[in-house]
């Protein structure tokens, strides 16, 4: 092979490699982009049907119900304007409790329940997920992080 052909070959290999990676990445991206919707947006019908997304808000006081002795739990998340009932089976995070800002990951059923496959309540008890903080209608009581 002449050096010139070799270089062309190398360029071709790099371009096709990058191209393939870009296509794959964009597919993977499209599949795995998770949008966040507030309960108000969910009520307005903005959330997608049959596709997973994230919903977040405060866990309404007194809304956490558990079938005794079972892993099934129901609770309501609210942005202080609208609320969405959530169903979840499994272990809740340590930081989950009523009044806490949480984010649930899952999909909406036809009955309007949100079936979560994951519930996130990260960081510490003073922490509010920024998505939730941004969409709350009545500001939560002033909470300071350091």
């Amino acid at each position, binding site marked *: 092979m002449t050096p010139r052909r070799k270089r062309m070959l190398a360029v071709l290999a790099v371009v096709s490699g990058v191209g393939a990676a870009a296509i794959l990445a964009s597919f*993977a991206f499209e599949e795995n982009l998770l949008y966040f919707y507030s309960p108000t947006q969910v009520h307005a019908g903005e959330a997608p049907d049959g596709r997973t997304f994230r919903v977040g808000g405060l866990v309404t006081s007194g809304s956490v119900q558990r079938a005794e002795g079972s892993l099934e739990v129901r609770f309501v998340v609210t942005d202080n304007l609208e609320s969405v009932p959530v169903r979840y089976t499994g272990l809740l995070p340590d930081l989950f409790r009523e009044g806490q800002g949480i984010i649930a990951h899952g999909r909406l059923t036809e009955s309007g329940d949100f079936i979560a496959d994951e519930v996130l309540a990260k960081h*510490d008890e003073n922490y509010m997920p920024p998505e939730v903080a941004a969409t709350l209608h009545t500001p939560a009581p002033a909470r300071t992080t350091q």
Partner: protein
Amino acid sequence: MIPEIGHFALVMALLFAMVQSFFGLAGAARGQAAWMGAGRSAVTGQFVFVAIAFAALAWSFIQKDFSVLYVATNSNSELPVFFRFAAVWGAHEGSLLLWALCLAGWSLAVTALSSSLQVRFRSRVIGILGLISIGFMLFMLTTSNPFDRLVPAALEGKDLNPLLQDFALTIHPPILYLGYVGFSVAFAFGCATLLEGRLDSAWARWTRPWTLAAWLFLTVGIALGSWWAYYELGWGGWWFWDPVENASFMPWLAGTALIHSLAVTEKRGLFKSWTLLLAVSAFSLSLLGTFLVRSGVLVSVHAFATDPARGLFILAFLTVVIGGALALYAWRAPQLKSNAGFELAARESFVLFNNAFLVAALCLILLGTLYPLFMDAMELGKVSVGPPYFNMVFLVPMVPLLLLLGIGMHAVWKKSRLQPVRSRLLGIAAAGFAIAVIAGAAVYGEIRPMATIGFTLALWVMGSSLMIPLARLRAGQAVPGAVLGMAIAHFGVGVVTLGITGVQSFKIEEDVALAVGDTATIGGYDFRLAALRDARGPNYVAVEADVVISKDGAEITTLRPQKRLYNSGGNPMTEAGIQVGPGRDLFAALGEDLGQGRWSLRLQYKPLIRYIWLGALLIALGGGIAGLDRRYRRATAAAPGLERAAAEVTR
């Protein structure tokens, strides 16, 4: 009084950093030996004062001085002294101080150990390190002073986040930061070279051990973080593609590319400007990581605080440092020409591929990490990029990378000469595939395509890595440190691949509700909840479970997971019970009281997970052995075959 001394010491350190950068850079520019000497001496001054500041903060923690806001916010009188010390870097302000201490330490080490460098070059390196120090000192003093007083003083501290009250807090952040910050040395070497506009193979030989050292710490730091997350916060996950994990992983990928590219620059005088770009990028990514973590733009377990002033400061600093370095690069790099040729299957090509794949992985991770920020800034909606994206796009460059790694190790410089090893490599590949299929079927009872690919690649890389030292030993030759280190590190890559493949393909995780006496079975192991009792620690109370694990009726072990409630208040904490085994971990974590005497538990079977961290340690060990190779310690003698340019280096 002590906190004021600390504050004063920080101001002094800032002044010394200013002296260091001014005299370092101006002295080199004007060729004034006395100025350059002053710059060098300032390094020691800076280190001493940062160390005093650090000691003052540690002392305030140990003395429970709750009149210091940072101490009051992050410790508590019940907190054991061990954790009170580690709490120094348990939150934002103190971890910046640790950052500054690491930077001062690296600067001191460079100054002390670089007497073989040309005086001017060394002075420029010191000056540039000083500039970075100035940025961090200013950041601390203007937005994040750890010595701010609390008036009136608190009677009791708020406590350290219970998640952090763990042995790993004492080692994970310092080691990780040593790695992060260590890339500043390669960065400074790169910028100094660009200022001089001249790069020879001696430059690469100076830079290599420093880069290896930083990379070694970063490797260990990341592995420790993963291990900590696994047993403490992650409910058994070992990597989450959390933005902060990505922030540490991206400099690691750039650093890995850099140490390979440096080898080519040293041995063959090629890839000069690319190597410089990587040297600049690795540290820039460290700074970007710091920005992402500290500015509060990202949500993660590591994001301590959100304060717009801090974000703006770091963004401005980031722009100055990265923008300045890239501008310098754009201006000077075209002067660095290399025009040696090499054949397609020469070692240079393989390093080129290595770099291409590592950088591709880096870019894909960067995209996934920054995209949500971009969408948010453009008000296009709040999105997050899930782990499946990262898992998938990371595999794409990694599979060919591992495939070529096994061949590339045996390639020679300049020429395509793989014929002598071809049959043996084919043998290793075939054996690896056969073992992957048979062992996969025998141990896990099924053959899965992805698992087979992963195991084959792992065995391929391990086998191929062993070939080199074994061949040398058989021929009765000594194995030089660089070769041995390379073989061990690459063997470690295979071990990591083995672990990741095992755990990702065959892990079992299940949430169950058990009453005392109930049994749940996963992966052939019976987990019996044998007892529940109250337990007590120094600053917490807990519910502790006995989970008896048996297989085929034979008892294996009893795990004692806990649910803790710290006296300082806050939420309960989960302390998992884990049985470590060579082939698998068994994991049980307590959830909560579900009523009717039942508790929720998460049970897991994690095959081969230990190999992820073991492999990472082997990678670091290999890096260490390579970095200690004799030729880096010989200041003047050039290794055979090196360009004569190296000979002009004088003591």
